[in-house]
């Protein structure tokens, strides 16, 4: 973690550390244009537009029910699975709209992986969980799968804990281990973007800090968008922060800016604890 910005006028005392944003020359990985999401007639996201640069971490924050999960699920077309949800607007991945006609959501989800709030292991062995993605994408060679499993589990900082129980049920792992296994499972399909919906909310502080360290690592290879309830967490791990309120994107900027010099009064109210 990097040191606190040396600002005199820092209004938020509890933000002790924030990451520095990367150099602004990086390419845009995700560009979301005027995104709206409807559950039946209820509009849960209104006209949200934002950009996520490559190889950075963006946090989505906001009070419960403001639409963070709804937003993030639109980014890998998970809403397609619910027949009653309608998505409008564009999500450009490397400049190409993933909602354009003829785009196969299956290939999109291959490129944009997702980690859920609660660990959701398959009732299979640890090994079978991790290689599930590669298997469905056609890799059958046991040796190759083993390599992938080891690489992904190492990357998810779980290898040492599970290397002797790869053929045991994943359901027997602790919650934190299950969540890291679910991250390894996503890494195994080598996506370009990883979406995380409060990946640490069901975990204790130690497991949480492991996941946070891991996210810092992942950033070198992936673009990460993470929903979090904890503003401290957003401050610790993300380069950019987006604040949502009642389905609207209120503010987006570098994490330092948003937490120290929020432009919008509502953002300031929220991060100083006056709202929600």
């Amino acid at each position: 973690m990097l040191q606190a910005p040396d600002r005199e006028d820092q209004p938020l005392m509890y933000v002790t550390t924030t990451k520095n944003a990367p150099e602004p020359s990086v390419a845009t990985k995700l560009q979301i244009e005027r995104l709206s999401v409807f559950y039946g007639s209820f509009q849960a996201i209104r006209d949200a537009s934002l950009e996520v640069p490559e190889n950075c971490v963006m946090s989505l924050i906001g009070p419960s029910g403001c639409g963070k999960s709804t937003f993030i699920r639109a980014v890998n077309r998970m809403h397609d699975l619910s027949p009653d949800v309608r998505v409008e607007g564009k999500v450009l991945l490397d400049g190409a709209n993933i909602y354009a006609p003829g785009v196969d959501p299956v290939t999109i989800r291959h490129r944009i992986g997702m980690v859920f709030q609660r660990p959701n292991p398959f009732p299979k062995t640890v090994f079978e969980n991790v290689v599930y993605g590669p298997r469905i994408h056609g890799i059958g060679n046991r040796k190759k799968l083993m390599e992938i499993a080891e690489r992904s589990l190492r990357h998810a900082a779980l290898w040492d804990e599970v290397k002797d129980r790869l053929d045991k049920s994943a359901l027997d792992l602790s919650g934190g281990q299950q969540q890291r296994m679910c991250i390894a499972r996503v890494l195994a399909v080598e996506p370009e973007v990883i979406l995380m919906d409060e990946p640490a909310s069901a975990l204790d502080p130690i497991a949480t800090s492991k996941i946070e360290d891991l996210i810092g690592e992942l950033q070198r290879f992936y673009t990460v968008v993470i929903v979090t309830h904890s503003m401290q967490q957003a401050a610790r791990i993300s380069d950019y922060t987006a604040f949502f309120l009642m389905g609207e994107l209120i503010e987006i900027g570098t994490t330092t800016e948003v937490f120290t010099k929020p432009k919008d009064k509502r953002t300031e109210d929220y991060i100083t604890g006056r709202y929600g």
Partner: protein
Amino acid sequence: MNNLTQRARMQPVLGVGTGIAAFASAAIVFLILIFLLVFAWPAIRFNGSGILTGVIWNIGNQYGSSTVTHNGVTAQAGASFGGLVFVFGTIATSALAMVIAVPLSFLVAVALVYRVPRKLQPLANTLVELMAGVPSVVYGLWGIVVLVPWVGNQLGPFAQAHLSWVPLVRGETGSGNGLLAAGIILALMVLPIMVATLRDVILAQPPTIFEASMALGSTTWQAVTRAVFPSVRKGFLAAVLVALGRALGETMAVLMVCGAAINQFPSNIFQAVNTIAAVIVSQLDSALTDASGMAQRSLAELALVLFLITLVVNVVARLTLRGADRSAQ
């Protein structure tokens, strides 16, 4: 009012009540078995293993007074009660029904759970239930009016023209009454219970399993078959067995479309067959004219065979379901 103590007081009553009900149904099954055994006993002695191996069903010469005696039991001269054709027909029609219904019910259940918009789901579920409630004879009527002519006039000639290289399909296709029509009717009749059971076991799974698979870039089909299905396999197998139990004993609709074959096996899926249940109904009239009474008793013996087959299937289904419950915990 103290609801809790009242409920506690009710508890033993409920326990005794369900106990009596369970005991009563076991006792009824047992009594039916005893009845069939006693009534069929002379036929069991007369027919020996012939009831399962014989091909000829002939109640004997009813006009002469000559009789034959075997194992101390007497029947009309020329009588032969071979049930193999019917045992075969029962198994063949049910097996064909399963071949059709298993993949179809799987597809329908998957579509019901994952593809039908939530608003339409109650409607779709009601349709499935309605299908389960249609009386057997209505299926049979539909079979006679629609299915049999279609098989006889369209499918049969088509198969003769293009599929003559397929074993079990090539050859005379006949009127449409036969194995295929019976199998299709049975498949439709057991479809609702299979769809409903499979739908329920899928819905009982945490939806996160399906989502997890989809989020890894699987197709819906891969998610269902690789992630969801392994945990519902046993429940599905139990549903298949329960459905099989019904198909084996189904009578009216099968009788109306099976062609009521006697003394011959079908040589392909289009030809006439007969099942135990259907032959009991269709042969009852003539059996009642048998002066020796052996024809009735032989039909009862066939009923006993059917009873035992379905009993075994149902017991296996129960055991599988229990296994499924345990593995779900």
